[in-house]
């Protein structure tokens, strides 16, 4: 009888504990750990952007070294999707359902991100700072998706504005990747030029698998463009500039922030990148910006692999993670996804190493409630991969 009572009591305790822990525990959060995930192309055609996910890794290690956040260490799960949306989806599902990820951060590429956006949103998993400036993250807005990267449209608009207003250029053409990434740039350029009563003189699409860009450059040359916007992968951007040089076609090239890692671009273009103007969403890695220098010393110097480079893409991995870490910190010890969303919505002019980041309470009719940063500045590549800042932080409005 006594034994039965003991079994009954123990069962009751176990059930009660289960209920209690079920009521308070959040997926991916334990008393000592917070599980955060990210995908990134370590191989494949977009591998040049692979250092984004590695930058986040060093940043999280630095946070953990400083004691974590409210006693919890970040456990970072990074995987290689080779810029292949099918692999992104498989990897995200595997980690989400196998390990249990509290929130996702970064993630290079519009197409890979689009492959998992609906999945994450249906499961109400927060995702902060997709590493792509696509309008798809915010239009329509999603409660759990917080964009940091300024819209590619914004970059294209500001580049076109600079070309027309500051450089007096009239004949602007674009070579763009034939997917959402490229088309967002195309839309932005068209919008801005329309404001000046201009039209693009050539719109040349390029597929990610294209190996020969001479026909593309011929089209650009034929249009007699004096400015060419590059909205492609690093590989295609370098090929376009190089082939143009061989063809004796010398417009002013302007590029999205995805090709703003000037030392890298100068190296792989064998110097042809000199003079290219690009947008930048974060402080320049070799600038003396104090917070950036702290990250370099405490994250990069401590945790980066031997052959890693302190470049734009690497620091971008920190840019996406900064608002997430700040919001987790603001949540206090009681970390849940709902509280994280509230904390993110509370960010106003938060300044890390990017432009200012602000969110608003969720409004399904207002895309800007989930667009954190809308500022960029323009830079020009000088000899030796050095950077010249052309403008201050600016937004379209």
């Amino acid at each position, binding site marked *: 009888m006594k034994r039965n009572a003991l079994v009954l009591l123990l069962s009751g305790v176990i059930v009660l504990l289960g209920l209690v822990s079920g009521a308070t525990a959040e997926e991916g959060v334990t008393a000592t750990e917070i599980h955060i995930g990210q995908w990134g192309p370590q*191989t494949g055609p977009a591998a040049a952007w692979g250092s984004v996910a590695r930058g986040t890794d060093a940043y999280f290690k630095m946070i953990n070294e400083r004691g974590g956040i409210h006693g919890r260490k970040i456990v970072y799960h990074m995987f290689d999707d080779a810029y292949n949306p099918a692999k992104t989806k498989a990897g995200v599902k595997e980690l989400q359902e196998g390990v249990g990820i509290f929130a996702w951060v970064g993630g290079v590429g519009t197409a890979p991100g689009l492959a998992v956006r609906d999945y994450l949103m249906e499961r109400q998993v927060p995702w902060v700072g997709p590493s792509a400036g696509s309008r798809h993250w915010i239009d329509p807005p999603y409660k759990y998706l917080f964009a940091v990267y300024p819209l590619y449209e914004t970059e294209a608009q500001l580049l076109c504005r600079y070309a027309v207003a500051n450089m007096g250029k009239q004949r602007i053409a674009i070579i763009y990747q034939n997917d959402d990434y490229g088309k967002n740039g195309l839309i932005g350029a068209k919008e801005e030029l329309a404001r000046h009563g201009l039209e693009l003189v050539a719109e040349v699409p390029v597929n990610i698998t294209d190996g*020969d860009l001479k026909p593309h450059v011929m089209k650009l040359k034929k249009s007699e463009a004096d400015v060419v916007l590059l909205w492609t992968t690093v590989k295609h951007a370098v*090929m376009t500039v190089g082939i143009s040089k061989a063809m004796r076609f010398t417009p002013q090239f302007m590029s999205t922030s995805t090709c703003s890692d000037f030392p890298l671009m100068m190296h792989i273009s064998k110097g042809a990148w000199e003079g290219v103007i690009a947008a930048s969403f974060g402080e320049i890695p070799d600038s003396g910006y104090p917070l950036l220098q702290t990250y370099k010393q405490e994250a990069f110097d401590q945790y980066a692999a031997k052959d890693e480079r302190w470049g734009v893409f690497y620091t971008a991995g920190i840019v996406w993670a900064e608002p997430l870490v700040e919001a987790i910190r603001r949540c206090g010890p009681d970390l849940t996804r709902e509280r994280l969303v509230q904390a993110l919505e509370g960010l106003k002019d938060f300044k890390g190493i990017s432009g200012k980041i602000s969110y608003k309470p969720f409004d399904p009719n207002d895309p800007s409630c989930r667009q954190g940063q809308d500022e960029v500045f323009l830079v020009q590549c000088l000899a030796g991969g050095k950077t010249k800042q052309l403008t201050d932080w600016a937004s379209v409005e």
Partner: protein
Amino acid sequence: MIDFIQMLINGVAVGSSYALLGLAMVIIYKTSEVPNFAQGEMALIATYVAYMLLEQYHFPSYLAFPLSLVFAVVLGCVLEFTVLRRAKDPSVLGMIIITIGLEMILMGLVSWKFGAEQKSMPFPISPYDSVMFGEFFVSTLEILTLIVALCTMIVLFLFFRFSRLGMAMKATQQNPMAARIMGIRTRRILMATWGISSLVGASAGLLIAPIIMQPYMMWDPMLKGFAAAVMGGMTSLPGAVFGAYLLGIIENLFGGYISIEFKSVVAFVVIVLMLCIRPSGLFARHYVKKV
């Protein structure tokens, strides 16, 4: 008209690298009837070896490039000896699958050893210098590639026609059993075939690398080379070269006049059309069953 002629020139220019890879595939196919899908990645490894010798060991280029070509020959022979030859009861399909597997392994190996980021191959000629002929331009690297492709084709053609080893290779392809009875060591012949094919492919890799160098770089040229070889009938060396130049020109004209968006699929349309309409290729005479 100027555009048209420039497009023809561009087509011939890009066709040269397709031609080298097409030739490499034809050499193996001629003797073993296996389309080698690892061709591009075999060239990739040799190219990265050249890069390693130049960048890490600071070899001069007149040593680094020949050494990488020697490496390519050894790699081809080793792969044949250690992998292909070990296949039990090899069917053509089985061998194709093995080459696809090899392709993935080799690409993974390069990504692991050298990283997936783009590299800059030091090369004596700048890929962005060009020569102007009146209104037309050709890059100096493309002229070099054209010369290498045509010389390779002529040397291979003479080799297969007049050298003992070349004759033995042809004999092995036409009737392995009879060749063996006549005293030809067909296994060694196959190994030599892989070595020579790897050498030709590697020369393509070395000429592509100055423009773009990353583990993914040989995939597109390899497929185009394959398409060119199919056009030429898979066994004809001049056929593969002719197919490569034709493909380059078709791609450029298609991109220029019809649709630049669909330019990259032209090669595959060509493969499908050739296999449907003339499966023996433009230049093959004695075989009907192909690929």
